[in-house]
Protein backbone atom coordinates (compact mmCIF):
# COMPACT_ATOMS: atom_id res chain seq x y z
CA UNK A 1 0.00 0.00 0.00
CA UNK A 2 2.69 2.47 0.99
CA UNK A 3 4.56 1.43 -2.12
CA UNK A 4 1.59 2.35 -4.24
CA UNK A 5 1.19 5.71 -2.50
CA UNK A 6 4.87 6.47 -2.97
CA UNK A 7 4.53 5.56 -6.60
CA UNK A 8 1.57 7.91 -7.03
CA UNK A 9 3.42 10.66 -5.21
CA UNK A 10 6.51 10.31 -7.35
CA UNK A 11 4.42 10.31 -10.45
CA UNK A 12 2.54 13.48 -9.51
CA UNK A 13 5.90 15.15 -8.78
CA UNK A 14 7.08 14.19 -12.21
CA UNK A 15 3.93 15.43 -13.89
CA UNK A 16 4.23 18.71 -12.03
CA UNK A 17 7.88 19.11 -13.00
CA UNK A 18 7.11 18.24 -16.57
CA UNK A 19 4.42 20.90 -16.84
CA UNK A 20 7.08 23.54 -16.22
CA UNK A 21 9.41 22.25 -18.93
CA UNK A 22 10.14 24.90 -21.56
CA UNK A 23 12.36 23.05 -24.00
CA UNK A 24 13.15 19.59 -25.26
CA UNK A 25 16.51 19.95 -23.55
CA UNK A 26 14.85 20.45 -20.19
CA UNK A 27 12.65 17.50 -20.93
CA UNK A 28 15.74 15.40 -21.55
CA UNK A 29 17.47 16.43 -18.38
CA UNK A 30 14.33 15.89 -16.29
CA UNK A 31 13.98 12.44 -17.75
CA UNK A 32 17.62 11.67 -17.08
CA UNK A 33 17.13 12.67 -13.47
CA UNK A 34 13.94 10.70 -13.13
CA UNK A 35 15.51 7.39 -14.14
CA UNK A 36 18.61 7.84 -12.00
CA UNK A 37 17.36 5.19 -9.61
CA UNK A 38 17.77 2.60 -12.37
CA UNK A 39 21.54 2.31 -12.27
CA UNK A 40 21.99 0.16 -15.34
CA UNK A 41 19.86 2.33 -17.59
CA UNK A 42 21.82 4.69 -19.79
CA UNK A 43 20.78 8.28 -20.47
CA UNK A 44 17.64 8.59 -22.55
CA UNK A 45 17.62 9.12 -26.29
CA UNK A 46 14.76 11.03 -27.81
CA UNK A 47 13.85 11.08 -31.47
CA UNK A 48 11.02 13.03 -33.04
CA UNK A 49 9.93 13.32 -36.59
CA UNK A 50 10.66 16.10 -38.96
CA UNK A 51 9.56 14.25 -42.04
CA UNK A 52 9.36 10.69 -43.21
CA UNK A 53 13.00 10.68 -44.10
CA UNK A 54 14.40 12.94 -41.43
CA UNK A 55 14.22 13.22 -37.70
CA UNK A 56 15.73 15.10 -34.79
CA UNK A 57 17.72 13.04 -32.34
CA UNK A 58 18.52 14.27 -28.84
CA UNK A 59 21.11 12.44 -26.80
CA UNK A 60 23.70 12.93 -24.12
CA UNK A 61 27.35 13.30 -24.85
CA UNK A 62 28.85 13.31 -21.41
CA UNK A 63 26.68 15.78 -19.54
CA UNK A 64 25.85 17.74 -22.67
CA UNK A 65 22.68 17.30 -24.69
CA UNK A 66 23.30 17.13 -28.40
CA UNK A 67 20.66 17.65 -31.03
CA UNK A 68 21.30 16.03 -34.33
CA UNK A 69 19.26 15.98 -37.52
CA UNK A 70 19.37 12.52 -38.90
CA UNK A 71 18.40 11.46 -42.35
CA UNK A 72 17.28 7.92 -42.72
CA UNK A 73 14.37 5.60 -42.46
CA UNK A 74 12.25 6.19 -39.40
CA UNK A 75 11.37 3.14 -37.31
CA UNK A 76 7.66 3.11 -37.73
CA UNK A 77 6.29 0.49 -35.39
CA UNK A 78 3.87 1.89 -32.83
CA UNK A 79 4.34 -0.66 -30.05
CA UNK A 80 6.78 -0.79 -27.15
CA UNK A 81 9.51 -3.27 -27.94
CA UNK A 82 12.62 -4.78 -26.49
CA UNK A 83 15.90 -5.40 -28.27
CA UNK A 84 14.41 -4.80 -31.66
CA UNK A 85 17.07 -5.47 -34.28
CA UNK A 86 15.88 -2.71 -36.60
CA UNK A 87 16.02 -0.15 -33.81
CA UNK A 88 19.49 -1.27 -32.77
CA UNK A 89 20.70 -1.06 -36.30
CA UNK A 90 19.14 2.35 -36.73
CA UNK A 91 20.98 3.72 -33.68
CA UNK A 92 24.18 1.88 -34.54
CA UNK A 93 24.12 3.59 -37.91
CA UNK A 94 23.63 7.00 -36.35
CA UNK A 95 26.23 6.67 -33.60
CA UNK A 96 28.66 4.37 -35.33
CA UNK A 97 28.78 1.87 -32.43
CA UNK A 98 26.89 -1.26 -31.55
CA UNK A 99 23.99 -0.88 -29.14
CA UNK A 100 23.35 -3.31 -26.34
CA UNK A 101 19.94 -4.10 -24.93
CA UNK A 102 17.45 -1.55 -26.04
CA UNK A 103 13.99 -0.52 -24.83
CA UNK A 104 12.04 1.33 -27.51
CA UNK A 105 9.04 3.38 -26.44
CA UNK A 106 7.03 5.11 -29.19
CA UNK A 107 5.17 8.27 -28.16
CA UNK A 108 1.85 9.09 -29.69
CA UNK A 109 1.74 12.83 -30.33
CA UNK A 110 -1.36 14.78 -31.28
CA UNK A 111 0.71 17.24 -33.30
CA UNK A 112 0.62 16.38 -36.92
CA UNK A 113 3.83 17.07 -38.69
CA UNK A 114 3.74 18.23 -42.26
CA UNK A 115 3.69 14.55 -43.09
CA UNK A 116 0.50 12.89 -41.88
CA UNK A 117 1.55 9.45 -42.97
CA UNK A 118 3.87 8.97 -40.02
CA UNK A 119 2.56 6.37 -37.59
CA UNK A 120 4.97 7.42 -34.91
CA UNK A 121 6.00 10.99 -34.33
CA UNK A 122 8.42 10.46 -31.41
CA UNK A 123 10.37 7.64 -29.78
CA UNK A 124 12.25 7.24 -26.52
CA UNK A 125 15.16 4.83 -26.53
CA UNK A 126 16.81 3.45 -23.42
CA UNK A 127 19.96 1.41 -23.61
CA UNK A 128 20.09 -0.70 -20.47
CA UNK A 129 21.38 -3.81 -18.75
CA UNK A 130 18.22 -4.59 -16.81
CA UNK A 131 16.98 -8.10 -16.29
CA UNK A 132 13.90 -9.83 -14.95
CA UNK A 133 11.71 -7.90 -12.47
CA UNK A 134 13.88 -4.85 -12.66
CA UNK A 135 13.15 -4.57 -16.38
CA UNK A 136 9.42 -4.98 -15.79
CA UNK A 137 9.60 -2.36 -13.07
CA UNK A 138 11.39 0.10 -15.38
CA UNK A 139 8.92 -0.50 -18.19
CA UNK A 140 6.04 0.20 -15.79
CA UNK A 141 7.87 3.25 -14.45
CA UNK A 142 8.21 4.71 -17.90
CA UNK A 143 4.71 3.59 -18.86
CA UNK A 144 3.31 5.63 -15.95
CA UNK A 145 5.07 8.69 -17.26
CA UNK A 146 4.43 8.18 -20.92
CA UNK A 147 1.30 10.28 -21.17
CA UNK A 148 2.92 13.19 -19.39
CA UNK A 149 5.98 13.03 -21.60
CA UNK A 150 3.83 12.90 -24.72
CA UNK A 151 1.74 15.86 -23.67
CA UNK A 152 4.78 17.98 -22.87
CA UNK A 153 6.58 17.04 -26.07
CA UNK A 154 3.43 17.81 -28.00
CA UNK A 155 3.24 21.21 -26.38
CA UNK A 156 6.92 21.98 -26.97
CA UNK A 157 6.78 21.06 -30.62
CA UNK A 158 3.62 23.06 -31.12
CA UNK A 159 5.22 26.06 -29.44
CA UNK A 160 8.21 25.61 -31.64
CA UNK A 161 5.97 25.63 -34.72
CA UNK A 162 4.21 28.72 -33.47
CA UNK A 163 7.47 30.49 -32.77
CA UNK A 164 8.71 29.68 -36.20
CA UNK A 165 5.46 30.91 -37.73
CA UNK A 166 5.58 34.07 -35.64
CA UNK A 167 9.18 34.65 -36.61
CA UNK A 168 8.36 34.10 -40.25
CA UNK A 169 5.44 36.52 -39.97
CA UNK A 170 7.55 39.12 -38.25
CA UNK A 171 10.34 38.81 -40.77
CA UNK A 172 7.84 39.14 -43.59
CA UNK A 173 6.18 42.11 -41.96
CA UNK A 174 9.48 43.86 -41.38
CA UNK A 175 10.82 42.83 -44.74
CA UNK A 176 8.15 44.80 -46.59
CA UNK A 177 9.63 48.01 -47.88
CA UNK A 178 6.54 50.14 -47.47
CA UNK A 179 5.49 51.21 -44.01
CA UNK A 180 2.60 49.12 -42.68
CA UNK A 181 0.69 49.57 -39.45
CA UNK A 182 -2.02 47.58 -37.76
CA UNK A 183 -4.39 49.75 -35.75
CA UNK A 184 -6.97 48.61 -33.24
CA UNK A 185 -10.53 49.89 -33.45
CA UNK A 186 -9.52 52.96 -31.41
CA UNK A 187 -6.88 53.88 -33.99
CA UNK A 188 -4.08 53.00 -31.63
CA UNK A 189 -1.05 51.35 -33.18
CA UNK A 190 -0.92 47.66 -32.38
CA UNK A 191 1.93 46.67 -34.62
CA UNK A 192 4.16 48.59 -36.98
CA UNK A 193 6.79 47.22 -39.28
CA UNK A 194 10.39 48.30 -39.44
CA UNK A 195 9.87 50.63 -42.38
CA UNK A 196 7.14 52.44 -40.47
CA UNK A 197 9.36 52.85 -37.42
CA UNK A 198 12.14 54.16 -39.58
CA UNK A 199 10.13 56.50 -41.76
CA UNK A 200 6.84 57.48 -40.17
CA UNK A 201 7.43 57.10 -36.44
CA UNK A 202 7.02 60.81 -35.72
CA UNK A 203 4.05 61.54 -37.93
CA UNK A 204 1.01 62.92 -36.15
CA UNK A 205 -1.56 60.19 -35.74
CA UNK A 206 -4.29 62.11 -37.57
CA UNK A 207 -2.04 62.44 -40.63
CA UNK A 208 -1.68 58.67 -40.71
CA UNK A 209 -5.25 58.45 -41.97
CA UNK A 210 -5.07 61.03 -44.75
CA UNK A 211 -5.09 60.05 -48.41
CA UNK A 212 -1.48 60.97 -48.96
CA UNK A 213 1.38 61.75 -46.70
CA UNK A 214 4.51 63.83 -47.26
CA UNK A 215 7.40 63.10 -44.94
CA UNK A 216 11.09 63.87 -45.44
CA UNK A 217 10.80 64.43 -49.18
CA UNK A 218 8.95 61.17 -49.56
CA UNK A 219 5.39 60.89 -50.74
CA UNK A 220 3.14 58.09 -49.57
CA UNK A 221 -0.24 57.03 -50.79
CA UNK A 222 -2.29 55.56 -48.00
CA UNK A 223 -4.44 52.46 -48.42
CA UNK A 224 -6.57 51.26 -45.53
CA UNK A 225 -7.77 47.70 -45.18
CA UNK A 226 -10.27 47.01 -42.40
CA UNK A 227 -10.22 43.56 -40.83
CA UNK A 228 -13.62 42.21 -39.85
CA UNK A 229 -13.30 39.18 -37.63
CA UNK A 230 -16.44 39.02 -35.51
CA UNK A 231 -20.07 38.65 -36.46
CA UNK A 232 -20.80 42.35 -36.19
CA UNK A 233 -19.79 44.36 -39.20
CA UNK A 234 -17.51 46.88 -37.54
CA UNK A 235 -13.84 46.21 -38.16
CA UNK A 236 -11.75 45.04 -35.24
CA UNK A 237 -8.53 46.21 -36.83
CA UNK A 238 -7.35 48.41 -39.64
CA UNK A 239 -4.26 47.80 -41.65
CA UNK A 240 -2.75 50.91 -43.19
CA UNK A 241 -0.37 50.48 -46.07
CA UNK A 242 1.75 53.53 -46.90
CA UNK A 243 2.81 53.13 -50.49
CA UNK A 244 5.99 55.00 -51.30
CA UNK A 245 5.11 56.76 -54.54
CA UNK A 246 8.03 59.19 -54.48
CA UNK A 247 9.82 57.62 -57.41
CA UNK A 248 6.62 57.01 -59.37
CA UNK A 249 5.61 60.64 -58.92
CA UNK A 250 9.01 61.87 -59.90
CA UNK A 251 8.97 59.71 -63.02
CA UNK A 252 5.48 60.91 -63.85
CA UNK A 253 6.55 64.51 -63.42
CA UNK A 254 9.56 63.88 -65.59
CA UNK A 255 7.44 62.18 -68.21
CA UNK A 256 5.08 65.13 -68.34
CA UNK A 257 8.07 67.43 -68.52
CA UNK A 258 9.51 65.35 -71.36
CA UNK A 259 6.24 65.44 -73.22
CA UNK A 260 6.02 69.17 -72.72
CA UNK A 261 9.54 69.54 -73.99
CA UNK A 262 8.83 67.39 -77.02
CA UNK A 263 5.69 69.38 -77.80
CA UNK A 264 7.51 72.62 -77.25
CA UNK A 265 10.39 71.46 -79.42
CA UNK A 266 7.99 70.49 -82.14
CA UNK A 267 6.16 73.77 -81.97
CA UNK A 268 9.40 75.71 -81.79
CA UNK A 269 10.54 73.92 -84.93
CA UNK A 270 7.42 74.86 -86.80
CA UNK A 271 7.47 78.44 -85.65
CA UNK A 272 11.15 78.73 -86.48
CA UNK A 273 10.52 77.58 -90.04
CA UNK A 274 7.64 79.99 -90.45
CA UNK A 275 9.69 82.87 -89.11
CA UNK A 276 12.75 82.14 -91.15
CA UNK A 277 11.51 83.52 -94.46
CA UNK A 278 10.20 86.89 -93.31
CA UNK A 279 13.20 87.26 -91.07
CA UNK A 280 15.59 86.59 -93.92
CA UNK A 281 13.66 89.16 -95.93
CA UNK A 282 14.00 91.73 -93.17
CA UNK A 283 17.71 91.14 -92.77
CA UNK A 284 18.40 91.01 -96.50
CA UNK A 285 16.43 94.16 -97.23
CA UNK A 286 18.20 95.90 -94.36
CA UNK A 287 21.49 94.86 -95.91
CA UNK A 288 20.36 96.20 -99.30
CA UNK A 289 19.21 99.49 -97.81
CA UNK A 290 22.36 99.97 -95.73
CA UNK A 291 24.29 100.04 -98.98
CA UNK A 292 22.09 102.85 -100.21
CA UNK A 293 22.20 104.87 -97.00
CA UNK A 294 25.05 107.24 -96.34
CA UNK A 295 27.26 106.22 -93.45
CA UNK A 296 26.90 108.49 -90.48
CA UNK A 297 23.23 109.22 -91.01
CA UNK A 298 20.47 108.16 -88.63
CA UNK A 299 18.96 106.00 -91.36
CA UNK A 300 22.25 104.13 -91.75
CA UNK A 301 22.52 103.55 -87.99
CA UNK A 302 18.88 102.53 -87.68
CA UNK A 303 19.15 100.08 -90.56
CA UNK A 304 22.21 98.64 -88.93
CA UNK A 305 20.16 98.07 -85.77
CA UNK A 306 17.42 96.39 -87.80
CA UNK A 307 19.98 94.11 -89.42
CA UNK A 308 21.56 93.21 -86.07
CA UNK A 309 18.19 92.50 -84.53
CA UNK A 310 17.28 90.25 -87.42
CA UNK A 311 20.58 88.44 -87.07
CA UNK A 312 19.92 87.80 -83.42
CA UNK A 313 16.54 86.34 -84.28
CA UNK A 314 18.16 84.11 -86.88
CA UNK A 315 20.60 82.76 -84.32
CA UNK A 316 17.78 81.95 -81.91
CA UNK A 317 15.83 80.25 -84.64
CA UNK A 318 18.86 78.28 -85.74
CA UNK A 319 19.35 77.06 -82.19
CA UNK A 320 15.70 76.18 -81.88
CA UNK A 321 15.77 74.24 -85.11
CA UNK A 322 18.88 72.32 -84.17
CA UNK A 323 17.35 71.63 -80.83
CA UNK A 324 14.07 70.32 -82.13
CA UNK A 325 15.65 68.30 -84.86
CA UNK A 326 15.74 64.55 -84.34
CA UNK A 327 18.15 63.94 -87.13
CA UNK A 328 21.25 64.94 -85.24
CA UNK A 329 20.46 62.38 -82.62
CA UNK A 330 21.18 59.62 -85.07
CA UNK A 331 24.60 60.91 -85.86
CA UNK A 332 26.16 59.73 -82.66
CA UNK A 333 29.82 58.81 -82.84
CA UNK A 334 32.42 57.50 -80.44
CA UNK A 335 34.49 60.37 -79.21
CA UNK A 336 36.43 61.07 -76.05
CA UNK A 337 35.07 63.81 -73.86
CA UNK A 338 38.60 65.26 -73.79
CA UNK A 339 38.40 65.63 -77.56
CA UNK A 340 35.14 67.54 -77.26
CA UNK A 341 36.72 69.88 -74.73
CA UNK A 342 39.84 70.37 -76.86
CA UNK A 343 37.76 71.14 -79.92
CA UNK A 344 35.57 73.64 -78.10
CA UNK A 345 38.15 75.63 -76.17
CA UNK A 346 39.63 77.40 -79.24
CA UNK A 347 36.17 78.74 -80.08
CA UNK A 348 36.06 80.36 -76.66
CA UNK A 349 39.49 81.98 -76.81
CA UNK A 350 38.22 85.54 -76.86
CA UNK A 351 35.81 84.85 -74.01
CA UNK A 352 38.16 83.17 -71.58
CA UNK A 353 41.60 84.64 -72.22
CA UNK A 354 41.47 86.80 -69.10
CA UNK A 355 40.85 83.84 -66.78
CA UNK A 356 43.21 81.32 -65.32
CA UNK A 357 42.33 78.09 -67.08
CA UNK A 358 42.91 74.86 -65.22
CA UNK A 359 42.57 71.93 -67.53
CA UNK A 360 42.55 68.55 -65.81
CA UNK A 361 41.79 65.92 -68.39
CA UNK A 362 41.68 62.29 -67.38
CA UNK A 363 43.95 59.75 -69.00
CA UNK A 364 41.44 56.97 -68.58
CA UNK A 365 39.07 55.85 -71.31
CA UNK A 366 36.58 58.68 -71.46
CA UNK A 367 34.85 57.81 -74.72
CA UNK A 368 31.18 58.66 -75.01
CA UNK A 369 28.59 58.12 -77.68
CA UNK A 370 27.35 61.57 -78.70
CA UNK A 371 26.83 63.89 -81.61
CA UNK A 372 30.04 65.94 -81.34
CA UNK A 373 28.59 69.27 -82.49
CA UNK A 374 25.75 69.13 -80.03
CA UNK A 375 28.09 68.13 -77.24
CA UNK A 376 30.42 70.97 -78.22
CA UNK A 377 27.46 73.30 -78.02
CA UNK A 378 26.86 72.13 -74.44
CA UNK A 379 30.47 72.67 -73.43
CA UNK A 380 30.45 76.02 -75.22
CA UNK A 381 27.29 77.17 -73.44
CA UNK A 382 28.45 76.20 -70.00
CA UNK A 383 31.94 77.67 -70.35
CA UNK A 384 30.44 80.84 -71.78
CA UNK A 385 28.15 81.06 -68.75
CA UNK A 386 31.09 80.47 -66.44
CA UNK A 387 33.04 83.24 -68.14
CA UNK A 388 30.11 85.62 -67.91
CA UNK A 389 29.64 84.75 -64.24
CA UNK A 390 33.27 85.64 -63.45
CA UNK A 391 33.39 88.98 -65.19
CA UNK A 392 37.00 90.13 -65.45
CA UNK A 393 39.01 87.58 -63.54
CA UNK A 394 38.74 84.20 -61.93
CA UNK A 395 39.68 80.57 -62.26
CA UNK A 396 37.98 78.41 -64.85
CA UNK A 397 38.41 74.72 -64.21
CA UNK A 398 37.58 72.13 -66.83
CA UNK A 399 38.02 68.60 -65.54
CA UNK A 400 37.19 65.19 -66.92
CA UNK A 401 37.03 62.04 -64.86
CA UNK A 402 35.86 58.45 -65.11
CA UNK A 403 33.90 56.88 -62.29
CA UNK A 404 32.60 53.44 -61.62
CA UNK A 405 28.91 53.30 -60.95
CA UNK A 406 27.26 49.97 -60.47
CA UNK A 407 28.62 47.68 -63.12
CA UNK A 408 29.26 50.45 -65.60
CA UNK A 409 31.60 53.37 -65.92
CA UNK A 410 30.55 56.96 -66.14
CA UNK A 411 32.38 59.82 -67.75
CA UNK A 412 32.13 63.18 -66.03
CA UNK A 413 32.91 66.61 -67.30
CA UNK A 414 33.08 69.20 -64.57
CA UNK A 415 33.18 72.86 -65.44
CA UNK A 416 33.58 75.16 -62.50
CA UNK A 417 34.04 78.87 -62.09
CA UNK A 418 34.85 81.26 -59.28
CA UNK A 419 32.02 83.62 -60.16
CA UNK A 420 29.21 84.94 -58.05
CA UNK A 421 27.30 81.67 -57.85
CA UNK A 422 23.66 81.07 -58.59
CA UNK A 423 21.08 82.46 -56.23
CA UNK A 424 19.33 79.55 -54.46
CA UNK A 425 15.95 81.04 -55.31
CA UNK A 426 16.50 80.55 -59.04
CA UNK A 427 18.62 77.42 -58.94
CA UNK A 428 15.65 75.26 -59.88
CA UNK A 429 14.84 77.40 -62.88
CA UNK A 430 18.17 77.72 -64.64
CA UNK A 431 17.45 74.74 -66.88
CA UNK A 432 14.02 76.08 -67.84
CA UNK A 433 13.27 77.30 -71.31
CA UNK A 434 13.76 81.01 -71.84
CA UNK A 435 14.93 81.53 -68.29
CA UNK A 436 17.81 83.95 -68.23
CA UNK A 437 19.38 86.42 -65.86
CA UNK A 438 21.26 88.08 -68.64
CA UNK A 439 20.21 91.30 -70.22
CA UNK A 440 18.64 91.29 -73.66
CA UNK A 441 21.12 90.45 -76.32
CA UNK A 442 23.49 88.61 -74.00
CA UNK A 443 21.47 85.50 -73.53
CA UNK A 444 18.43 83.87 -74.99
CA UNK A 445 17.47 81.63 -72.08
CA UNK A 446 18.01 78.65 -74.29
CA UNK A 447 21.61 77.72 -73.56
CA UNK A 448 21.19 75.67 -70.42
CA UNK A 449 17.80 74.21 -71.26
CA UNK A 450 19.16 73.02 -74.58
CA UNK A 451 22.34 71.76 -72.96
CA UNK A 452 20.31 69.73 -70.51
CA UNK A 453 18.17 68.36 -73.29
CA UNK A 454 21.17 67.47 -75.39
CA UNK A 455 22.94 65.69 -72.55
CA UNK A 456 19.76 63.77 -71.76
CA UNK A 457 19.47 62.78 -75.40
CA UNK A 458 22.76 60.97 -74.93
CA UNK A 459 21.55 59.19 -71.81
CA UNK A 460 23.42 61.53 -69.51
CA UNK A 461 22.53 64.12 -66.96
CA UNK A 462 23.67 67.52 -65.90
CA UNK A 463 23.59 68.92 -62.40
CA UNK A 464 24.77 72.12 -60.83
CA UNK A 465 26.38 72.85 -57.50
CA UNK A 466 26.65 76.47 -56.60
CA UNK A 467 27.56 78.63 -53.68
CA UNK A 468 26.97 82.35 -53.58
CA UNK A 469 30.15 84.42 -53.96
CA UNK A 470 32.24 81.28 -54.29
CA UNK A 471 31.26 79.88 -57.64
CA UNK A 472 29.36 77.25 -59.53
CA UNK A 473 30.17 73.89 -60.97
CA UNK A 474 28.28 72.09 -63.68
CA UNK A 475 28.70 68.34 -63.72
CA UNK A 476 27.84 66.53 -66.91
CA UNK A 477 27.68 62.78 -66.57
CA UNK A 478 27.54 60.48 -69.57
CA UNK A 479 27.73 56.71 -69.85
CA UNK A 480 31.17 55.53 -70.87
CA UNK A 481 31.30 53.97 -74.30
CA UNK A 482 33.66 51.17 -75.16
CA UNK A 483 36.45 52.64 -77.23
CA UNK A 484 37.37 50.64 -80.27
CA UNK A 485 40.71 48.98 -79.62
CA UNK A 486 43.57 49.38 -82.08
Amino acid at each position, binding site marked *: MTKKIARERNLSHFVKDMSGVASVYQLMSLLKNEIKAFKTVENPLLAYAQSQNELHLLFYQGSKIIKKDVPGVWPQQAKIRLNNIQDSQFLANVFGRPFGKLLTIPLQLKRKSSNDQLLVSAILFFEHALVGDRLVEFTEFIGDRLQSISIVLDRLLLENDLNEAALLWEQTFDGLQDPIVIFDSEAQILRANKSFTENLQNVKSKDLFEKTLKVNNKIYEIRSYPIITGENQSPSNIINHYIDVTLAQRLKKQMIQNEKMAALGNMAGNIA*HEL*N*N*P*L*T*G*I*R*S*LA*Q*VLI*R*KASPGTDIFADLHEVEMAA*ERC*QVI*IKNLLEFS*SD*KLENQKVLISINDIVQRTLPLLKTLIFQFELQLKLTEKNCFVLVEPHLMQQVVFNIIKNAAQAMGNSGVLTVKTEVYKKGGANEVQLIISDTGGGIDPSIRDQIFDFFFTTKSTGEGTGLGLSMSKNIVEKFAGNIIVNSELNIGSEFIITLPQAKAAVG
Partner: protein
Amino acid sequence: MKVLIVDDEPLIRRSLVRAFANYGHVVFEADDGVKGLEIWQAEAPDIILLDILMPGLTGPQVLDQIENRGNAKIILMSAYAGEYNLKKANELGADMFIPKPFTDIFAVVQIAENLMVVN
Protein backbone atom coordinates in the same frame (compact mmCIF):
# COMPACT_ATOMS: atom_id res chain seq x y z
CA MET B 1 23.25 89.76 -116.71
CA LYS B 2 19.63 88.68 -116.66
CA VAL B 3 18.53 87.12 -113.40
CA LEU B 4 15.27 85.22 -112.76
CA ILE B 5 14.13 84.71 -109.20
CA VAL B 6 11.48 82.05 -108.52
CA ASP B 7 10.31 81.98 -104.93
CA ASP B 8 6.88 82.01 -103.31
CA GLU B 9 8.06 84.16 -100.39
CA PRO B 10 7.59 87.85 -101.36
CA LEU B 11 10.20 89.18 -98.96
CA ILE B 12 12.87 86.80 -100.24
CA ARG B 13 12.04 87.77 -103.82
CA ARG B 14 12.02 91.41 -102.99
CA SER B 15 15.37 91.41 -101.22
CA LEU B 16 17.00 89.33 -103.97
CA VAL B 17 15.57 91.64 -106.63
CA ARG B 18 16.91 94.69 -104.78
CA ALA B 19 20.33 93.16 -104.19
CA PHE B 20 20.81 92.07 -107.81
CA ALA B 21 19.43 95.35 -109.13
CA ASN B 22 21.86 97.13 -106.84
CA TYR B 23 24.67 95.53 -108.83
CA GLY B 24 23.11 96.60 -112.10
CA HIS B 25 21.62 93.29 -113.14
CA VAL B 26 18.30 92.94 -114.92
CA VAL B 27 16.01 91.04 -112.60
CA PHE B 28 12.76 89.15 -113.28
CA GLU B 29 10.70 87.56 -110.58
CA ALA B 30 8.02 84.86 -110.40
CA ASP B 31 6.05 83.69 -107.40
CA ASP B 32 5.54 80.18 -108.68
CA GLY B 33 7.06 77.63 -111.00
CA VAL B 34 4.64 78.02 -113.89
CA LYS B 35 5.21 81.76 -114.15
CA GLY B 36 8.89 81.10 -113.74
CA LEU B 37 8.88 78.81 -116.77
CA GLU B 38 6.98 81.43 -118.81
CA ILE B 39 9.57 84.10 -118.02
CA TRP B 40 12.35 81.61 -118.76
CA GLN B 41 10.94 81.09 -122.26
CA ALA B 42 10.24 84.77 -122.87
CA GLU B 43 13.41 86.32 -121.45
CA ALA B 44 16.08 83.58 -121.57
CA PRO B 45 17.86 84.70 -118.36
CA ASP B 46 21.51 83.91 -117.69
CA ILE B 47 20.84 82.64 -114.22
CA ILE B 48 17.88 81.35 -112.24
CA LEU B 49 17.56 81.35 -108.48
CA LEU B 50 15.01 78.66 -107.80
CA ASP B 51 13.39 77.88 -104.46
CA ILE B 52 12.94 74.15 -103.89
CA LEU B 53 9.79 74.06 -101.81
CA MET B 54 6.96 75.95 -103.49
CA PRO B 55 3.26 75.36 -103.91
CA GLY B 56 2.41 74.07 -107.39
CA LEU B 57 5.58 73.14 -109.19
CA THR B 58 8.58 72.52 -106.95
CA GLY B 59 12.03 73.77 -107.82
CA PRO B 60 13.27 70.39 -109.09
CA GLN B 61 10.08 70.03 -111.20
CA VAL B 62 10.67 73.44 -112.75
CA LEU B 63 14.28 72.48 -113.38
CA ASP B 64 13.07 69.33 -115.10
CA GLN B 65 10.87 71.28 -117.49
CA ILE B 66 13.47 73.79 -118.55
CA GLU B 67 14.34 73.24 -122.21
CA ASN B 68 17.15 74.71 -124.31
CA ARG B 69 19.06 75.68 -121.21
CA GLY B 70 22.17 76.68 -123.08
CA ASN B 71 24.72 78.22 -120.75
CA ALA B 72 22.17 79.36 -118.20
CA LYS B 73 23.10 78.66 -114.59
CA ILE B 74 20.66 77.40 -112.05
CA ILE B 75 20.92 77.92 -108.30
CA LEU B 76 18.64 75.92 -106.01
CA MET B 77 17.72 77.44 -102.67
CA SER B 78 16.17 75.77 -99.64
CA ALA B 79 15.60 76.21 -95.95
CA TYR B 80 15.85 72.44 -95.59
CA ALA B 81 19.61 72.25 -95.80
CA GLY B 82 19.50 68.91 -94.06
CA GLU B 83 17.71 67.27 -96.97
CA TYR B 84 19.38 69.28 -99.77
CA ASN B 85 22.97 70.11 -100.40
CA LEU B 86 25.29 70.89 -103.30
CA LYS B 87 25.69 67.25 -104.23
CA LYS B 88 21.96 66.72 -104.38
CA ALA B 89 21.52 69.96 -106.34
CA ASN B 90 24.13 68.83 -108.85
CA GLU B 91 22.35 65.52 -109.25
CA LEU B 92 19.15 67.42 -109.98
CA GLY B 93 20.96 69.36 -112.70
CA ALA B 94 21.58 72.61 -110.82
CA ASP B 95 24.94 74.35 -110.62
CA MET B 96 24.83 75.56 -107.06
CA PHE B 97 22.97 75.21 -103.81
CA ILE B 98 22.39 78.03 -101.36
CA PRO B 99 20.90 77.21 -97.97
CA LYS B 100 18.37 79.57 -96.47
CA PRO B 101 18.17 81.70 -94.42
CA PHE B 102 20.72 84.00 -96.02
CA THR B 103 23.07 85.68 -93.62
CA ASP B 104 24.35 88.09 -96.26
CA ILE B 105 22.24 88.84 -99.33
CA PHE B 106 25.22 90.27 -101.20
CA ALA B 107 27.07 87.04 -100.73
CA VAL B 108 24.27 85.43 -102.73
CA VAL B 109 24.79 87.98 -105.50
CA GLN B 110 28.51 87.27 -105.35
CA ILE B 111 27.96 83.53 -105.71
CA ALA B 112 25.73 84.09 -108.72
CA GLU B 113 28.23 86.42 -110.37
CA ASN B 114 31.07 83.95 -109.73
CA LEU B 115 29.09 81.22 -111.44
CA MET B 116 28.81 83.35 -114.56
CA VAL B 117 32.49 84.25 -114.51
CA VAL B 118 33.57 80.62 -114.30
CA ASN B 119 31.96 80.01 -117.62
